[in-house]
């Protein structure tokens, strides 16, 4: 610095001299410097813009791919739902309407029986009384010829009349009794018909309800097949909901697995040793973890074999006989592992008691002081948990499947967001460099304001002189 200021006797003069030299040099280098700054700015702008466009294109491609995946997943899910609904309809038709001919025959027979009974229950008009003819005979008799015997005849007629009336009443009562009996027999037939018709009515209503559900699902399926935006939007939001719900359930399952782990890790030391290490972790802990993972795997296979989940299409596509065998094998293994866990949970309690007794002995306390009559409750509870938790973990397969399927959508959405942000940042950077080059060019000119002002003044005077010469010439 001192050297720079000592080129003349006066430092101020030296400084001024340097300023003049630097400004002159900058002024002469100005066009080249401006060109360099502008070219750099433009190049960076183009590079970043091209990169932004490429990222944007990748985002569009990914969005399209996500859309296709989402639609495919939605289509598959809808197919499953529709298939299940058809299966239910098929079951209803097979179970209830499959024996429609028998139902029809029952109804016809019931109606026939009712008709017959009804026919028999028709009120029979009573026979005309027998004494009418006797009265006619009496009326036709000559009064003189038969005056003496009329009294006895009328007396007989009266007797006959009373007798006939009694018989008619008995017959009438008998007929009424038979009719009422027949009508009583008809009552269960009516009820049976009514029940049968109610049952048929319910089935038909159920079928109608299912058919309307199928209609709705088919409409949604058509929307998905057509690739409509509304369908994509619904599927996307459903995926988000499924993702968070399944993640929550999985967290709960992890909690269950952790409790399961703590139940069996300690007694596992009895089997594989308490201090040996495997890849830096206690072998007992790894063994306990492996047991839990094997249980979860068995649960997965069981769920796959039952066709509740579809993570492994190979299992779902197995012949029914093999699949049923697989169900029994996985269930047996789960049962055995659950039994092992229950045994280990019991062992844990025994070990705990043993350790407490030894500690008490080492402290000088009485070993029997720690015995407790209610300890069996915790032991039983631990054994129960050890047995139940493996089966409970089996159901992890369901949220796991949902999680895996929805994760694809979530990852796609996150990747799309990341690409969009990257594209925006690249674009901003490109524009930033573009404007930065302009600012740098202006900053370059800042110390050159005197020569620039001079050059501008000079050029304006030259311009005016040229105009004046043109006017003179014209």
């Amino acid at each position, binding site marked *: 610095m001192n050297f720079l200021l000592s080129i003349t006797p006066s430092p101020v003069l030296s400084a001024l001299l340097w300023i003049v030299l630097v400004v002159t040099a900058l002024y002469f280098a100005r066009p080249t410097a401006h060109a360099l700054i502008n070219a750099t700015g433009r190049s960076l702008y183009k590079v970043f813009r091209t990169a932004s466009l490429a990222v944007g294109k990748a985002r569009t491609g990914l969005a399209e791919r996500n859309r296709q995946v989402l639609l495919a997943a939605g289509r598959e899910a809808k197919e499953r739902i529709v298939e299940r609904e058809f299966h239910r309809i098929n079951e209803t038709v097979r179970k209830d309407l499959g024996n429609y001919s028998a139902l029809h025959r029952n109804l016809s027979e019931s109606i026939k029986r009712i008709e017959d009974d009804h026919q028999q229950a028709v009120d029979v008009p009573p026979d005309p009384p027998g004494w009418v003819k006797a009265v006619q005979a009496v009326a036709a008799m000559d009064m003189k010829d038969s005056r003496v015997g009329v009294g006895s005849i009328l007396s007989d007629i009266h007797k006959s009349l009373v007798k006939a009336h009694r018989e008619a009443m008995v017959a009438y009562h008998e007929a009424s009794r038979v009719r009422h009996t027949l009508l009583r027999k008809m009552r269960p037939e009516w009820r049976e018909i009514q029940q049968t018709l109610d049952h048929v009515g319910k089935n038909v209503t159920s079928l109608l309800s299912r058919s309307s559900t199928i209609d709705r699902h088919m409409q949604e399926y058509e929307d998905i097949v057509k690739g409509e935006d509304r369908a994509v939007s619904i599927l996307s939001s459903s995926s988000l909901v499924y993702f968070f719900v399944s993640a929550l359930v999985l967290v709960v399952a992890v909690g269950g697995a952790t409790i399961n782990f703590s139940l069996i890790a300690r007694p596992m*030391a009895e089997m594989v040793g308490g201090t*040996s290490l*495997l890849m830096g972790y206690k072998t007992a802990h790894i063994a306990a973890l492996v047991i839990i993972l094997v249980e979860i795997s068995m649960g997965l296979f069981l769920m796959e074999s039952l066709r509740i989940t579809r993570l492994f299409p190979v299992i779902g596509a197995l012949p029914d006989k093999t699949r049923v065998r697989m169900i029994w094998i996985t269930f047996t293994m789960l049962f055995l592992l659950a039994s092992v866990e229950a045994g280990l949970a019991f062992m844990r309690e025994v070990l705990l008691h043993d350790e407490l007794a030894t500690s008490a*002995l080492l402290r000088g306390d009485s070993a029997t002081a720690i015995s407790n009559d209610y300890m069996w409750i915790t032991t039983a509870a631990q054994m129960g948990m050890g047995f139940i938790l493996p089966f409970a973990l089996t159901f992890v397969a369901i949220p796991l499947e949902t999680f895996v399927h929805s994760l694809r959508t979530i990852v796609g959405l996150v990747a799309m967001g990341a690409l969009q942000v990257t594209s925006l940042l690249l674009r901003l950077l490109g524009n930033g460099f573009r404007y930065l080059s302009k600012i740098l060019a202006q900053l370059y000119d800042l110390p050159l304001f005197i020569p620039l002002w001079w050059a501008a003044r000079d050029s304006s005077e030259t311009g005016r002189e040229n105009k004046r010469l043109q006017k003179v010439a014209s």
Partner: protein
Amino acid sequence: MKTFSLLIVCTMLASCAQSSPGNSGVYMLIDTSGTYREEMLKAEQIIRYSLSQLDATDSFAVARIDTGSFSEKDIVAKMTFDDRPSTVNRQKRVFIDQIRAFVDDTRSSPYTDITGGLLQAVEYLNEKGPATKTVLIFSDLKEDLEKGYVRDIDIDLTGFDVIALNVTKLRSDNVDPREYLTRLEQWQNKVEKSGGHWRVINDLDGLEGLL
């Protein structure tokens, strides 16, 4: 196929689980000479505490200091704990029974051969090869050798923690405390020159940092 084979080999190698290298070896020397025999109950208390701190695969031995302590016969109880927790508990109970019998039946010895006991401890612990080696000396540190016993031997105590416990003051120490301090200093120099780490714990209520 190559990757699969490699995976299988790695799994097989990893499954050859090694015992934990973090095990401890503790050897406790108990002075039974003269009036120090009266401190046996305190020694039992320390042994109980040590047992509660030791775990699977650790080694523990208790030996008496008598006229000639460089002998396996002076080892009262020794145990290397099993890998299984239930067996460890059983071993600890057996160990404490042996110590009880020793405390009840032990007799006072006329001489005190601490160096011989220390030699025996080093030999035992080196043979066991634990990760940490600790020698507990429950004594007043007053060595009194019978005529003819040679104990002027260099002992390699590299990697050993030597802890003097309950170093009681003798009657002569009360008259001239320098004797006591000199005795402690001599033992400290002896241990540290041999590469060991020396500590003294006289307050038996604060055994937390013992092991």
